[in-house]
């Protein structure tokens, strides 16, 4: 089979024309994945060269942007898999519980004026930090859904997983994100009482975490800050598919009649 490149000189121009409009989107996601501009640029470049090389494998009429994102995701995983990162264990029930507490306690404040941000003074930095603190798999679905605007089905295609998994990760990811933000809001005094720091440490870190907790006992509780485990946090939940929906993930779509 002739490769796209050898096949048609012209095709290169087609590719550039088709692919270049997505540079910003890919870079933005790459930046959130790698958290630094140099790695993000490298990742995007590698993605584009691979996409160009395999351009003839792209099925006409399917979503080209999603195809590019899929290549980028695979490239990213391959590059990072080499580092053999340890998955984290996340106690999601704990996250959910404290989230509920804050929501219930602060509902009146939170809905007082939805148009002019409840967290008006909250810095973009805080939102970035909260987003970056998400375990990789959850961050990916949140980025793809809420920033890139992909549909659940497209995300499932990009990430090679069932739509039910996308939905459960989106549910959890958004919940963790909001919880972290509510925690910041509490810390800065915009809202009252509530959330404890998110449990996002691996077992390995538990001892370290405990010591830290002891050391800071009596002080104000810190916000979630898994920053020191940045690299490990990337793959926190790689195998964590045991979402507590009672129905199996595949049936989720059917059960809730997703349009």
């Amino acid at each position, binding site marked *: 089979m002739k490769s796209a490149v050898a096949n048609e000189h012209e095709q290169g121009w087609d590719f550039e024309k088709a692919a270049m409009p997505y540079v*910003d989107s890919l870079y933005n996601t790459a930046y959130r994945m790698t958290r630094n501009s140099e790695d993000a*640029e490298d990742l995007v*470049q590698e993605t584009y060269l691979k996409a160009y090389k395999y351009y003839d494998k792209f099925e006409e009429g399917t979503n080209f942007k999603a195809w590019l994102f899929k290549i980028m995701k695979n490239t990213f995983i391959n590059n990072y898999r080499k580092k053999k990162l340890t998955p984290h264990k996340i106690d999601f029930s704990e996250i959910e519980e404290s989230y509920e507490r804050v929501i219930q306690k602060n509902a009146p404040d939170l*809905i007082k004026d*939805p148009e002019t941000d409840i967290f008006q003074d909250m810095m973009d930095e805080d939102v970035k930090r909260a987003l970056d603190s998400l375990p990789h798999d959850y961050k990916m679905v949140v980025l793809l*859904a*809420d920033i890139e605007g992909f549909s659940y089905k497209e995300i499932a295609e990009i990430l090679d997983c069932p739509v039910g998994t996308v939905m459960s990760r989106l549910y959890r990811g958004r919940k963790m994100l909001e919880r972290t933000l509510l925690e910041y809001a509490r810390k800065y005094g915009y809202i009252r009482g509530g959330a404890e720091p998110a449990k996002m440490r691996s077992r390995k870190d538990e001892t370290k975490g405990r010591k830290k907790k002891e050391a800071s006992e009596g002080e104000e509780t810190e916000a979630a800050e898994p920053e020191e485990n940045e690299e490990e946090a990337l793959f926190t939940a790689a195998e964590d598919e045991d979402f507590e929906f009672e129905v199996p993930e595949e049936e989720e779509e059917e059960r809730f*009649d*997703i349009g």
Partner: protein
Amino acid sequence: MPVLFFLEFLAEGSPLQRAAMLCRDVKRVVYFFLDGSLGETTRQDLKSHLSLCPDCERRMRVQQALRNFLMARFARLSAAAPPRLKTRLTRSIRAFRTEWSR
């Protein structure tokens, strides 16, 4: 309390019996509702529930507020690719093409 209230309502054989959406279910579909991804039947069931359950209705408004806030902030977070990256990409693609077509 809302659950009891709801069960009571169901016991009377209301049309909501078909839906039987409990507060627990509402929590689980909130995001999908806000995304506009729920099918018509579930959406109607949810709306019926919300109209009868102040707790869930309040929760929905909180979640909506959070969602609005986050979407607005996300839009601001998006970073454009540096111009040098675009140049770099174009160059490397063209270099690659030349190499392959030799």
